[in-house]
């Protein structure tokens, strides 16, 4: 069963979602996710290439780069896929990979080869953001200086980078001499150190990236530094926020579904516990917030995905902020409610609930906490 992020999907979207869901169930169901979490390795190459062939990394990219959308709105398609991924807590870079792909596509043919590999699932990319724009307080920042030879020297330490240890391509948002500047850097560039961090969300492999006097050429710069990059950066944050929220919605959907099923069948006091109002009404309230979450995420994806980048996307950005702010808090709330329904069994490592709880708490702060997104919306309010 699809998560149903879209209230009504086109037949093409349904095909995409069905094939994605079937791929996930076949290749990376929850037991496999657990195995991966228990081990030290990342997702394997075959999984990523198969995902690439389903179109997962090309939805924000034109067909000329091997990408394409099934509905005309790539972000909406990607959000719907993200929800399917989130329902089964899929590991590996997806949100950041799509942000990077979108960004590289804007460079035209210049990074065509890299982009083609990324879209095909043969390269792994993440986005090193740190606390640029205050997105992740305390995460650190990369500073870029000119090296006098037309290139740049990058230095700094950034924590909380998604999938850092498993990626070979890094897009780095850095403070440069002409303002915000984004660079494409390969992970094997001399001076780049990546270390894994331990995460509450054991299904993911975040890390820290240290740049120790890393030299890159001028061709590593993506777009035009300064205002243009700042505008693009904002849009990237919106995209990442929407896709992260969509993954959360998938996790909410599955966790709630399991809680409902448990309430239907668990017997206490001679009745299924779901016949008690205390349980039934709790689940009804959680179901309401899940419906709202799906609705606001789909609306944000639809709007942001159809707006032109950097202009006219104001409504889309507003919706993206609202969607992330809403889902970040309601996701954790829903995990609490489901836990209460599961009772003791939810405390066991064997039960899947805690994996969802961990994921939802991690998603809540990924690419901006609820408070941060509300803060951005608050900037829309005059002070006069």
């Amino acid at each position, binding site marked *: 069963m699809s998560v149903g992020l879209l209230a009504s999907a086109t037949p093409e979207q349904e095909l995409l979602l069905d094939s994605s869901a079937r791929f996930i169930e076949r290749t990376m169901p929850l037991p496999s996710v657990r195995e991966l979490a228990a081990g030290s390795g990342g997702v394997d190459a075959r999984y990523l290439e198969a995902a690439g062939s389903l179109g997962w990394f090309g939805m924000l990219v034109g067909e000329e780069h091997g990408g394409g959308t099934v509905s005309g709105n790539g972000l909406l398609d990607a959000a719907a896929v993200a929800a399917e991924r989130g329902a089964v807590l899929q590991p590996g870079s997806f949100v950041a990979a799509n942000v990077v792909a979108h960004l590289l596509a804007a460079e035209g043919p210049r990074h065509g080869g890299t982009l083609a590999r990324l879209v095909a699932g043969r390269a792994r990319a993440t986005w090193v953001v740190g606390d640029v724009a205050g997105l992740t307080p305390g995460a650190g920042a990369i500073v870029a200086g000119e090296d006098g030879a037309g290139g740049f020297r990058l230095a700094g330490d950034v924590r909380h980078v998604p999938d850092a240890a498993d990626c070979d391509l890094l897009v780095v948002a850095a403070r440069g001499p002409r303002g915000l500047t984004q660079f494409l850097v390969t992970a094997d560039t001399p001076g780049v150190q990546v270390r894994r961090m331990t995460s509450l969300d054991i299904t993911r492999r975040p890390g820290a990236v240290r740049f120790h006097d890393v030299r890159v050429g001028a061709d590593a710069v993506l777009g035009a530094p300064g205002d243009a990059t700042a505008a693009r950066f904002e849009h990237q944050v919106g995209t990442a926020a929407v896709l992260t929220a969509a993954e959360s919605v998938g996790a909410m959907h599955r966790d709630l579904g399991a809680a409902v099923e448990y309430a239907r069948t668990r017997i206490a006091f001679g009745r299924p516990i779901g016949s008690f109002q205390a349980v039934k009404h709790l689940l009804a309230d959680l179901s*309401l917030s899940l419906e709202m979450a799906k609705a606001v995420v789909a*609306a944000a994806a639809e709007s942001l995905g159809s707006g032109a980048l950097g202009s006219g996307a104001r409504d889309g950005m*507003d919706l993206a902020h609202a969607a992330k702010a809403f889902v970040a808090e309601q996701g954790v709330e829903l995990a609490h409610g489901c836990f209460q329904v599961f009772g003791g069994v939810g405390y066991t490592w064997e039960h899947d609930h805690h994996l969802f709880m961990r994921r939802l708490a991690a998603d809540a702060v990924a690419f901006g906490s609820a408070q941060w997104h*509300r803060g951005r*919306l608050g900037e829309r309010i005059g002070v006069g």
Partner: protein
Amino acid sequence: MRDIAPERDGNAAPERDGNAAPERGDNVPAERGDDTAVPALDEYRARARSWIEANLERLPAPAPRRGGTGPAAIAAGRALQRRLHEAGYAGITWPREYGGQGLGPQYERAFQQEARGYRLPELGIAGGTTFGVCAMTMLAHASADFLRRHIPRILSGEELFVQFFSEPEAGSDLAGVRTRAVRAGEGWVLNGSKIWSSGAYYADWGMCLARTDWDVPKHRGLTWFAVPVTAPGVTVERIRQITGDAEFCQEFFDDVVLGDGDVIGQVNDGWTVAQTMLMFERGGGLSHGTRTTRASTGVAPDLVELARAAGRLADPLTRDLIVRAHVDDVARRALLARLGARMRTDPAQALHLASYAKLVSGVYDPVRADTAMRVGGADAVNWDAVNGDGEPGESLGRKAAVGFLNSRFMSIAGGTNEMQRNSIGERVLGLPREPSFDSGKPFREVLRDARGWSSD
């Protein structure tokens, strides 16, 4: 406290959702049931436009607030309704044999479109109930004789109907009504009381649910009657609400004599009729949500204004509160759009999905009202009795305070939050039902057992 369909007032007949059923090609003349020729839609629209221009009053833009429900306003509304009916523009989709026009919904929509910007009959909340709920229910269940007597008079503005449904002792438990109609000779004698009937103080009739058999389970011994509000033994009292308004009424029935001709639907089959009525009342459910939905532009403009007036707009905590409210507003609007789409995809679930639209108001309205109280602070508690010009105060703070008093309306009226949660839990999520203590035994025993309630 069930009446939540006041949005409809002011429509001669409500526009129904054209999406619910496939329509014929819009401009192909079709046939009515009685073989009269049906006008082409273009032609109909043009004729309607001429009539409207010649006969209706243009409204200033922006449209003024709706008229009150004072005797003069209602009399004017009735007169205008009569003119509409005489011209053939009332009951456009209703059967011709009862004074309607027997046309498809596209004709109704065409007329409404042409009439936009013109004054249509304003009959207040009772008007909405009459045309949107009571008449629709009657058309589905009442006898031909009954319909011939009442529908033409409804269409011509002579008869306004309200619901006599909830009782002081039967709110959420709608089928638990205790008002009784007892067979007496050729007719019936009605005793009891009804409450939360909106606009009954200026209506002509009430559609009244009464218990006619106490020795069967509660859903089986009920019957609907048409009761003239001026009949001997009927007393109508307006209820003063906590805001000071008095839109709702309570009625007392003291040996009111009714005839068999006043029965709507079958005797003791009132619950079937009630189901139809509830469906019309809920109108697919979505209308409930819209009343509290704000415009989509800007971040909670009402709260921003309130904060500015209270001098707190620069406070980071106040700003965060305002944005929180905005985020909820956005999610609520998105939910309603999503529900609309889901209902179209799955009409069989529509009524149950509508519970989400109701519950979201019931849950978030109070939160938003509390936010306004926090943003307004002392200004939302005390305000100047008169403003600088000696006029009665209309401060933003006072508005927040009234909003606070009213904020649980959707949590309670027309099915409490608890009822919606039951419905979502059982009908949408498929959770096991609550055990019933009243559906299987004679209602007489239900009351007796409930009074002596004890679990062991």
